């Protein structure tokens, strides 16, 4: 894969009436490790994908995918997308539909049938080849929709919520599939499941209210050593902030929003033993304050980071 940007947007925006779904997006994404696209509902993720694929025209700004505008004929077959809500044709076996899509990508009729069978095998649905869409479950249809993104050799694959609606075992299989293919093509994955993004992606773009909040490597976003994150039985009292700040090396205490039952304690990183001592002291302070804890994480997950960055008023 080349180092040239696969997606470049300049001043990109898309409005729906008075609502700005995408405000001003300036972005350059390079080929390579999978890229996550995250953000709360209404952040503009699906709109962004739709503009990249030419489903929607931008209201302002420009977008280039693989060096061309999205609908350019040179891009056909080189970009694949898992759309969130597109349906297959009723009454036609899924293998026939996949073969038709493969034919549109330049396969001969015979090769297209073989290609359709191959991608069905990839998503573990070879048995469903002769079935029409109305005979398949939602999860199976999702997998068929994923399968069509692997037809041929697209250089860029956009996956909008690839694991939503899948049972945990199947979701795990799909993630393994993405991992096994991410050396051959660049994935851009939009998902609310931030654990999936953290597991799969090398970098992440955080969108909020149509704007890019952050675009960085996942490793840079997720601090592993200097934060303790707690999931509590109840929202912690304000008074705990002062008690925890008094603990040695603690620099900042952050309470979650009401109802989140969350607490993050930031401390100065002075090596493993210092971290362990701080951890013990914080746990003792919580116990002394009678605060029940469900889970403690050393470090901060991507989910915590995204919640923090997209919290109203955080911009």
């Amino acid at each position: 894969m080349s180092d040239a940007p696969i997606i470049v947007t300049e001043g990109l925006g898309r409005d729906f009436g008075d609502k700005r779904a995408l405000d001003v997006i300036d972005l350059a994404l390079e080929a390579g490790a999978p890229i996550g696209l995250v953000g709360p509902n209404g952040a503009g993720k699906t709109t962004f994908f739709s503009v990249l694929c030419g489903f929607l025209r931008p209201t302002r700004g420009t977008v280039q995918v693989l060096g061309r505008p999205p609908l350019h004929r040179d891009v056909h077959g080189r970009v694949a997308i898992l759309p969130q809500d597109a349906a297959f044709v009723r009454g036609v076996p899924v293998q026939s539909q996949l073969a038709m899509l493969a034919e549109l990508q330049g396969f001969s009729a015979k090769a297209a049938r073989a290609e359709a069978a191959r991608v069905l095998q990839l998503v573990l649905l070879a048995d469903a080849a002769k079935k029409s869409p109305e005979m398949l479950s939602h999860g199976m249809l999702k997998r068929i929709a994923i399968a069509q993104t692997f037809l041929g050799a697209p250089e860029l694959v956009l996956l909008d919520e690839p694991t939503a609606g899948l049972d945990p075992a199947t979701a795990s299989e799909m993630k393994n599939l993405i991992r096994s293919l991410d050396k051959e093509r660049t994935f851009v994955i939009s998902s609310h499941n931030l654990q999936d993004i953290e597991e799969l992606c090398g970098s992440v773009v955080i969108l909020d209210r149509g704007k890019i909040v952050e675009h960085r490597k996942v490793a840079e976003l997720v601090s592993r050593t200097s934060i303790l994150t707690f999931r509590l039985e109840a929202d912690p009292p304000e008074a705990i902030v002062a008690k925890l700040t008094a603990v040695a090396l603690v620099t900042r205490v952050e309470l979650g929003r009401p109802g989140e039952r969350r607490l993050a304690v930031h401390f100065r990183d002075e090596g493993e033993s210092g971290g362990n001592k701080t951890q013990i002291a914080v746990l003792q302070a919580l116990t002394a304050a009678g605060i029940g804890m469900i889970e403690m994480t050393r470090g901060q997950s991507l989910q915590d980071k995204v919640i923090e960055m997209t919290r109203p008023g955080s911009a």
Partner: protein
Amino acid sequence: MRARRHIGVLVKQDLRYTFSSARGLLFLIFFGMFWGWVLSKLAGGLGEQLGTPQAGFLVTWLFDANVARLLQERPVTLAAYLVVAAMLTPLFAMLASCDQTATDLGTRHIRFLIPRVGRAEIFVARLIGASILTTIAQLLAGIAATIVALVVNKDPGQTGAIVAYGAQVTGFLIIYSLPIVALMSLISAAMASVGLALLVGVGGYAVLGVAMGLVPLKGAAATIVSFLVPGGLKPYLLQPELGPALAACAGALGYVALYSFLGWQVFRKRNA
């Protein structure tokens, strides 16, 4: 070259879907049953009766003198078939072609296509697919009508003339149905729903027909309104002379160009 291949693949899929879907089969069954019934009536002697001078008076009152002349001067079974078919072609063509890009847009199936083919290719392929379906239906009905006309014909010397006129009538009706298919390309792209496209197409056509009957327009206004839809060509098609019918066919192709262009303008700007 690539565009032609893409269109071929999409047309093949379109026809396969039509002939395997309940909606496509229902259209063909309805179309076949209707013409089976009409042709059985014509075979039973109704055609011959329509060609008599007595029936000519009624036909002139119902239609116009040209239609009465058509029934008397041309093989009457086929002429009667042409009259009935010309009246019902818009309805049948709408039924056959109401789903061109409507399902693609309504179910967002188009999102699987757009990363692989151009919008123009999708639009053209759907238009061609619907045109092929209506052409096949008109061709089968025309062949059946010609066979009926040959069966009821009692003059062996007329066989060649009946076959030639059967081919002519079938050709006219195929061409006459194409503007309706093109009109439905515009409506289906605008509505993005098969049911709504059919309702708007049939409803709009019916409302225009009723309005033209109720509002006594005269002069240029009457001419302009009558030519808003291809139905304005019908009087030219239903004449015994070849010239006006050929002019009507040329006019029909003009409508095809206009409606297809408008349909494309709507489709290319639609969100997928």
